[in-house]
């Protein structure tokens, strides 16, 4: 067993690419921020389009709300929540490093921010789930 562990050091050891502090988190954060950024930019215009149904009066708005509360759009809202949180967390890293905070420990900062993001998503998604499916029936 010990022999096996030492044999696998090239893969999981401190000098390997898969060691938690050696992963390409900066690149992953960068890519995640770009992808979510483009998605959220598109979302703003979709949001304006949806709200434009105000111009059609009360019935148009009601019809749009029926569509927006359908399963597929509620599911997309959860994806939106995830995209926002990813963008906020990765953006926090950018602002921190711009200000010189945590630069020397950036690999750890990335992990902490990622964990904060996951916790935020689970908490927020649970609250949304509760309000929509439990309380809202």
């Amino acid at each position: 067993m010990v022999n096996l562990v030492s044999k696998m050091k090239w893969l999981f050891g401190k000098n390997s690419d898969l060691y938690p502090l050696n992963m390409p988190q900066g690149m992953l954060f960068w890519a995640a921020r770009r992808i979510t950024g483009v998605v959220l930019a598109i979302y703003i215009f979709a949001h304006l389009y949806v709200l434009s149904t105000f111009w059609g009066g009360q019935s148009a708005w009601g019809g749009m709300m029926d569509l927006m509360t359908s399963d597929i759009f509620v599911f997309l809202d959860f994806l939106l929540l995830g995209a926002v949180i990813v963008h906020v967390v990765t953006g926090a890293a950018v602002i921190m490093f711009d200000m010189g905070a945590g630069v020397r420990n950036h690999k750890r900062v990335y992990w902490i921010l990622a964990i904060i993001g996951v916790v935020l998503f689970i908490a927020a998604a649970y609250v949304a789930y509760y309000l929509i499916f439990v309380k809202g029936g």
Partner: protein
Amino acid sequence: MVNNPGKTKGTWAWLLQRVTAVLILVFLGIHIYLAHFANLNDELLSWENVETRVQALPILIVDYGLLITAIFHALNGLRMVGFDFIVDKTKRRVVDVALWGAGIVAVFWGLAIFAPFLGILGFR
């Protein structure tokens, strides 16, 4: 910098991207709270409730603030992504003009969205 010898270095774009990021965090928090959490026993997105909310000046300021900061942040972000692929000075100028145009149109579009509740632009 490529094709941009010392004239503009993008300092304002860089700084405003960070400033709007923080502002969006504040505005978006208030926006989400008011639209989905403020009074849970009510149908918060019903026509009447939207009308009441929008007619309160502080809420209108938050929503319009979010509109302007979010559109700036989004289009400036797209500019950053785009400029990673577009290096030519003239093409960059075209992108800038297009994004400013899109941004101004989007802001006016957004400002006009609450017109039925505010009784402006020929509504009521």
